[in-house]
């Protein structure tokens, strides 16, 4: 199993551009999550999904959108990038009810200038 994979690893965006961060998992997990980590800080939840077709907002959803058309994939869309979105983005997955461990991907480092 590859676990949770994220692409790209690094990206530089100009203000106002858009992009999609990709996340995929091959563990047949039901739950998936997107977090952002600012320098020297803990992770904050952006969006999460409890299954294909079901998504919900986390703590800091503004400026982002998600979709979950398959169990494996959970892309994060940034529209009109702003400098405040400069961060490291982590995707995570969890099997489901009764299983609490979240498995994290390696992260995408995004800079908006």
């Amino acid at each position, binding site marked *: 199993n590859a676990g949770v994979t994220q692409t790209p690893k690094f990206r530089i965006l100009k203000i106002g551009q858009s992009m999609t961060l990709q996340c995929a998992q091959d563990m047949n997990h039901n739950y998936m*999550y997107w977090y952002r980590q600012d320098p020297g800080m*803990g*992770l904050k*939840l952006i969006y*999460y999904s409890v299954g294909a077709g079901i998504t919900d907002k986390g703590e800091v959803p503004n400026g982002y959108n998600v979709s979950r058309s398959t169990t494996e994939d959970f892309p994060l869309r940034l529209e009109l990038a702003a400098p405040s979105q400069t961060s490291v983005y982590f995707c995570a997955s969890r099997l489901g009810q009764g299983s609490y461990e979240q498995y*994290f991907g390696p992260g995408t480092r995004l800079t908006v200038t």
Partner: protein
Amino acid sequence: QQQVKQSPQSLIVQKGGIPIINCAYENTAFDYFPWYQQFPGKGPALLIAIRPDVSEKKEGRFTISFNKSAKQFSLHIMDSQPGDSATYFCAPAGSGYNKLIFGAGTRLAVHP
């Protein structure tokens, strides 16, 4: 407002020392209390976790102590090694969707 306060912010110990990291929370609905370990350039990984029905859990050199009445839990690392140098996060969650609420992190350095 869910809030998690982690201390200390950074910690330096000598090899063999016992670093202790603390986490205080406000939300009494939390029922899952994990510690995650993160190495530079990597995603966090679950280190150890406890449910509120026990006061202590040990896995190898790592121990969680849980004080429900004080709304605190802590991580103890016995016989610490340079390879334990990392950032540690507490991240309690409530049942159901398991939305982890991360503390700000503790950067641990274990000197040889």
